[in-house]
C-alpha cells in the first residue's frame, strides 16, 4: 500500500512539474519576443526544474515564518519575508500586496452594500451565513 501511495505521489509530482514546465514555457516565450532571443528546450526545462525546486524552498520557509509568528495560516507578511534580502524585490512584492489588499477591500465593500440592501428580508441566522460566505470568497 505504501508503494501505491508513493506511486500516486510520483504521478502528482509529474503532473505538477508538467504544469510548471508549460507555464515556464509561456513566460519564456514572452521574454523571447521582448528581448528577441531564443531559449533552447533544454534551457526552458532547466528553468522549470529550478522553479519547481524553488517552490519547495518557498513552501518550507513560509511554513516556518508563519509558525514563528505563532500562526498556522500563511499570510502576505510571510510572503514579504521571502523577499527581505533584496530591496527592489521587497518593494515590488509589497506594492503588489497593497494592490491586492485594496482591491479585496473594494470587493468587500460592494458585497456589504449588497447584503445590507437585502437585509430586511433575512433572519439573523441567514445574515450570518451570508457574511461567512463573503469572507470565504475573499480568501480565495
Amino acid at each position, binding site marked *: 500500500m505504501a508503494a501505491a501511495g508513493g506511486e500516486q505521489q510520483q*504521478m502528482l509530482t*509529474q*503532473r*505538477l*512539474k*508538467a*504544469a510548471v*514546465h*508549460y*507555464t515556464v*514555457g*509561456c513566460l*519564456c*516565450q*514572452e521574454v523571447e519576443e521582448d528581448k528577441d532571443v531564443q531559449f533552447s*528546450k*533544454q534551457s*526552458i*526545462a*532547466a528553468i*522549470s*526544474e*529550478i522553479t519547481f*525546486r*524553488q517552490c*519547495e*524552498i518557498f513552501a*518550507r520557509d513560509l511554513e516556518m515564518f508563519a509558525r514563528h509568528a505563532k500562526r498556522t495560516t500563511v499570510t502576505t507578511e510571510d510572503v514579504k519575508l521571502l523577499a527581505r*534580502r*533584496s*530591496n*527592489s*524585490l521587497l*518593494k*515590488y512584492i509589497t506594492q503588489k500586496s497593497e494592490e491586492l489588499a485594496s482591491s479585496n477591500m473594494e470587493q468587500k465593500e460592494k458585497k456589504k452594500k449588497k447584503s445590507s440592501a437585502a437585509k430586511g428580508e433575512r433572519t439573523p441566522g441567514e445574515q450570518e451565513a451570508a457574511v461567512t460566505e463573503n469572507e470565504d470568497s475573499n480568501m480565495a
Partner: protein
Amino acid sequence: ERSCSSLQHKSALPACVTGQKKMNSHESWSLSPEEFEIWDRLYRIKESDGIKEPVLPRVQFETLEKLEETPFPLQKPEEGAARELSLSEWSVWQNQPLPTSLVDHSDRCHLFIGAMEMMELMRHQQGDCSYEQELQPHLRMEDVNIAGDKRTPSMANPP
C-alpha cells in the same frame, strides 16, 4: 602567528592575543593597536601586493526597478581595482556536494546541486528534450492558465 589565528578563530580576531593585559583594549568593537598592527602587516591588501581587492557581485534584478543595493559602501573600489568573486566560474564542479567542515549542506544547497546535475545531463542533448518528453503525458490543461493557451508554447501540442 598566522597559523595561530587561522586555526583558533573562535573568538573575534587574532585569538593569539589573549591574556588579561591585552583583553582590556579589546573591549571596544574596533581593533586594538596591537591587533591593527597584525592586520596591517599580515592581512591588509596593499597596492604593493599586486592583487586586486575581492568584492562580491551586487544583486540586480533584470525585470524590476533597480534600487541601489549596496549595504556595504566599502564594496565600491574604483573600476578595475577590484576582483569580483564569481559564483559561476567553476560551475562544472557544482554537480556534486563539495566537502564540508562544521556546517552541513542545506536542503537548498542540495536542490542546487541536483539542478546542476540535471543540466549536466542535458548539456549534450540536441533538439528534443528528454525532460519535456517525460512530462508531456502528465500535463493537464486545467492546471495551467488558459490565457497562455493561445500562445502555443513549444510544449503545448496536446495529444
